[in-house]
């Protein structure tokens, strides 16, 4: 109940923005608001990893891409030629495949979005766990480079695989019908519906993470950040908590990837690029590392501006500049500039996880 009260202003703002756009005939803004909400979902997940568990990841674009690409590939690759295959036949008889007729009258058989989504999330869990176990033993520069390296590998893989469309990416991804009547897709008719789906998902994500932060687990994470050695001596299994947080944030990234891909109707390799991963880190940093609300606000705001093309060809440069300025002058985020001056020092002392 208390939680609902704390997010009430956000709910009001979401509805107000929609009504305002409808009233002024600027509903096209909702498209970018929808996309920003999905990116923000990734960013709040990364915020918990960076701000609370104190682990940097320069590879979260990779998890976004894992979600988006797996979902896109499964829902677009025609399995009809493989119909005789035992596995395909089994999936089909379980009702996990979807048959249809394309624009040219050809028939096709693809995996349904729900199944694809679950596969994508499971893949993200598996990969983040396998990567996380060794990677999270590293610290500082080593962790940064290892996660950066992971991101580049994902980028290279999608760029070099025919299955993932190489440099063109995958297009023609169908809509994702969550429940009858609610479909994630880029259709103009569903613009308002999709705006609420995206923000609904983001709010659910936010509530889950706020719950987490306020719990025994969140306390343990902050304790690790505060003094890893003492947390260990209190019985906190630091390695396990770091890995679980890493997996959690990867799942958030993958879900964002799945939904945004269905919304956009496709995905390209740039989503897996280093620059994207760095941008996510920048947004978490601007929001104030250990500050879910800040990460959410900044994630939505700056992504919205970027998607509207406000920064023009200086898009990446703007994020680079933001990173530097924030780290130089307000290492605890732009929101901390006014009322939490003492914390700047703390990040310096403790922020080298």
């Amino acid at each position, binding site marked *: 109940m208390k939680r609902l009260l704390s997010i009430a202003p956000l709910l009001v703002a979401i509805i107000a923005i929609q009504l305002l756009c409808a009233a002024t005939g600027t509903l096209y803004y909702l498209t970018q608001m929808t996309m920003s909400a999905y990116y923000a979902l990734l960013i709040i997940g990364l915020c918990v990893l960076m701000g609370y568990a104190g682990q*940097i990841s320069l590879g979260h674009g990779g998890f976004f891409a894992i979600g988006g690409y797996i979902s896109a590939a499964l829902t677009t690759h025609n399995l009809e030629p493989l119909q005789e295959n035992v596995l395909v036949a089994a999936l089909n008889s379980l009702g996990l495949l979807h048959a249809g007729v394309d624009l040219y009258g050809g028939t096709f058989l693809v995996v349904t979005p729900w199944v694809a989504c679950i596969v994508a999330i499971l893949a993200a869990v598996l990969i983040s766990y396998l990567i996380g176990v060794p990677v999270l033993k*590293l610290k500082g520069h080593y962790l940064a480079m290892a996660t950066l390296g*992971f991101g580049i590998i994902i980028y290279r893989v999608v760029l070099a695989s025919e299955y993932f469309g190489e440099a063109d990416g995958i297009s023609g991804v169908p809509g994702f019908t969550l429940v009858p009547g609610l479909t994630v897709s880029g259709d103009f008719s569903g613009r308002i519906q999709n705006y609420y789906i995206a923000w609904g998902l983001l709010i659910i994500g936010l509530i889950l993470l706020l719950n987490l932060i306020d719990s025994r687990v969140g306390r343990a994470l902050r304790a690790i950040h505060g003094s890893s050695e003492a947390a260990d001596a209190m019985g906190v299994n630091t390695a396990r908590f770091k890995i679980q947080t890493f997996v959690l944030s990867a799942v958030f990234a993958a879900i964002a990837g799945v939904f945004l891909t269905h919304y956009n109707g496709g995905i390209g390799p740039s989503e897996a690029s280093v620059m994207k991963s760095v941008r996510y880190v*920048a947004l978490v940093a601007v929001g104030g590392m250990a500050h879910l609300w800040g990460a959410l606000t900044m994630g939505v705001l700056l992504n919205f501006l970027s998607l509207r093309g406000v920064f023009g060809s200086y898009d990446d440069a703007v994020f680079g500049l933001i990173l530097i300025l924030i780290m130089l002058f307000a290492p605890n985020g732009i929101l901390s500039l006014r009322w939490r001056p003492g914390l700047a020092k703390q990040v310096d002392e403790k922020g080298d996880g």
Partner: protein
Amino acid sequence: MTIELFIQYCFAGLTYGSIYAIVAIGFNIIYNTTGIINFAQGEFVMLGGMISISLLPLMPMPLAIALAVVITMAVGALIEIIFIRWLKNPSVLRMIIITIGLSILIRETAVHIWGEGIRALPYFIGNQVTAISVFGARISPQVLVVIGVCGLMVVALGLFFKTTSVGRQMRACSANRTAAVLCGINTRNMVTFSFVLSAGIGALAGCVMSPITYSEYDIGTGLAIKGFTVAIIGGLGNAGSAVIAGLLLGLIEAFSVSVVPLAFQDAIAIAILLVILFVRPHGLFGSSEAAGLKEF
């Protein structure tokens, strides 16, 4: 594999390997005086190549290269003075993010100045098809220039750190900063100097490699991660073993072409990096006890 092909691969490996070694030494120089990994290290290489190409129409090539190196050194100095010098005990995380931001800024500036096109300096000796025969394999003289210049740089750096006063002061800084201050060494200037030095060697490497590997605004990240791989294999902070590690990585990459598709070539270096990080984060040649004392 024929002996000619084998030699060809060897030289290709040594060429790239010596560039990686120079980038890794650049990492090490800055790491030793500051404890920072400068993620913008690869950008120095890019700047060296790009600036010299732009200067070429105005002056003879040696002068263009020299000036490009000087300008890049100035950029290195400016970066340190503007962004790094005045921070008091910044955390590792903060420095990582700042240098990443810098690398993005430099790259984006480059793309706005030079565009996305691929450029190259002309071959220093002869042209694209000039070749000399080594045991039957045809090798471009430029390859020997790259290997030779990188080798000379390593020797010169070694002499610099051993024999000159400034070099000794920098070594003192990396050994024990507090003690260096007590001996009257201006450690801040040494830090600036380390940025200048690693910008300089990066830029020179960028010039000599340009005819073979071409210069492009976004080569920095790839070089940085490979240079870092090399620095890690050699043991962070250890310039001598970085040379061996660099050549090793270059050779592995060159020979991997016969096994792995070209598109995955970058992934090989990274996979090696990940494996090394997981198994021996203090490097193949480093000792774990020394690594334990360092602050990552």
